[in-house]
């Protein structure tokens, strides 16, 4: 790869890395595994970089690689996700404080992988439904369902004392945020749904 492209890749990665790592950690609750996924996503993007270095939102591209890689790998029989009704203990709902040791990954641990991805991308990273759908390689309606189901589960953990401030978007009134057409996310993910 040309040195200028390589430099630009490293600059992009430096900028994206902190949030991308937190996103991966939130998905799997393990820093080692999270960093393995982040490294894999960066490596794949590096290979594609000569043809995708001009994309407007490399962070969305990286998340798409990462999410699809996670979902596809977790379809392995020895890694298969088993749904459970066991949620982390409740009791945090009355404080709203962040000093009880509950971080985002733990709060979301009762959600399925897809629900976690949808909730983080929508509520923490403020991405519009259509963009989340592109990242996850799913239909917008599916993303809305994952968010809705995830919020129901979150009420078991965080209690009832929050309002779903994305509900309007989930009902389809507005996607908000930047125009999805700028994402150019069709560079990735064919065949991985």
């Amino acid at each position, binding site marked *: 790869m040309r040195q200028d492209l390589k430099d630009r890749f490293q600059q992009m990665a430096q900028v994206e890395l902190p949030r991308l790592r937190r996103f991966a*950690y939130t998905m799997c609750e393990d820093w080692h595994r999270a960093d393995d996924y982040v490294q894999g996503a960066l490596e794949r993007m590096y290979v594609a970089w000569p043809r995708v270095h001009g994309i407007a939102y490399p962070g969305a591209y990286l998340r798409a690689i990462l999410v699809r890689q996670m979902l596809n790998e977790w379809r392995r029989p020895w890694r298969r996700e088993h749904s459970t009704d066991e949620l982390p203990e409740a009791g945090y709902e009355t404080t709203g404080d962040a000093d009880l040791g509950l971080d985002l990954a733990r709060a979301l641990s009762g959600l399925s992988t897809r629900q976690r991805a949808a909730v983080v991308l929508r509520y923490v990273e403020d991405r519009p439904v259509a963009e989340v759908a592109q990242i996850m390689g799913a239909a917008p309606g599916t993303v809305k369902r994952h968010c809705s189901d995830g919020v129901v589960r979150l009420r078991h953990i965080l209690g009832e004392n929050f309002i779903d401030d994305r509900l309007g978007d989930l009902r389809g009134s507005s996607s908000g945020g930047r125009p999805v057409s700028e994402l150019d996310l069709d560079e990735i993910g064919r*065949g991985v749904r």
Partner: protein
Amino acid sequence: MNAEPTPLSERLKQLDAVTQAQGMPAFDLDAAVRGGERRQQRRSIAGTAAATVGAGLVAAALFAGGAHWNAFWDVDSDPAPSAVPVDLVYAQRGDSVTVSRGRDPLARVTVTSAAIDAEGHGTVAMRVESDAGFVIQLSDFIWAGESLDRLTAATSMTVDGSQTINWTYDGVSEGELAWVRPGTDRLAGVWSVGAGDSGAVGAVAADRSWYLQVGSAVTVYEGVEPQARMTVSSVAVGRTVGAAHVSVTAHDRYELRADDFVWAEESGPQHAPLADDWRSLSVRDDAVNTGDLRFAGVGEGYLLWAPDGRETAGVWLSPAVAG
């Protein structure tokens, strides 16, 4: 007194801030760059190995010596019409495939383990039970991983009774072990393989996507169901221009993107297709769509298909440079 309800997005961002405050372990970005370079290099290494074999090869190319083979396919290398009886029925249940002729069971084939060691060697153990002298061809088993699909030596074995067969592949990664029906590109069975040194083998999840190259065609599977099939029917190279003809078909819908193809020269440089041709071919409902790819300034090498950010899903040799 109850506090005012917090917007969920705000609440979750507070929790995200907790993660931030806890700090993160160190991350070696340079290692990720080196990993990306290795992935690119593996393409080049693969190309060198493929090109040394030359064009016109009908079966598979020797790679890295020994008795282990890679699936570098020439466009003329589609499976030959089978001499094997076509009336065999293959039925997979769990880790076992039962082979029958009509109502008569001939054999039961069970992959009992498939492990990868630290050097990337994959070892498969398979139990074959038959009272009818069942002939099994090991080269019908393809290890489809992240990079090149792997074949093993064309060893034919006749099993009468019960026998455990072990064989190995070089340079494998976690993936699928596909048993391709002799003389076809259809599956007789498939197993998820390569859970490190544990040797664990399991059924392929119905929603897992994976790719398998047999001859000039790469099939995209979800679970055991073929979703799309991409075929390269010709690869040509002139003094400076490379060209390939591709076709794609899909049961449901599929989009084949031109920029998922790379022309990798034997000497290392890699080229994207010319942008003024087509950008993508969409196909659905078992229709077929075709397109030509052109690459400028290329030398002898090979055509790669690398969808989904993979290293490779398909590889085709170019013929020798004309003139």
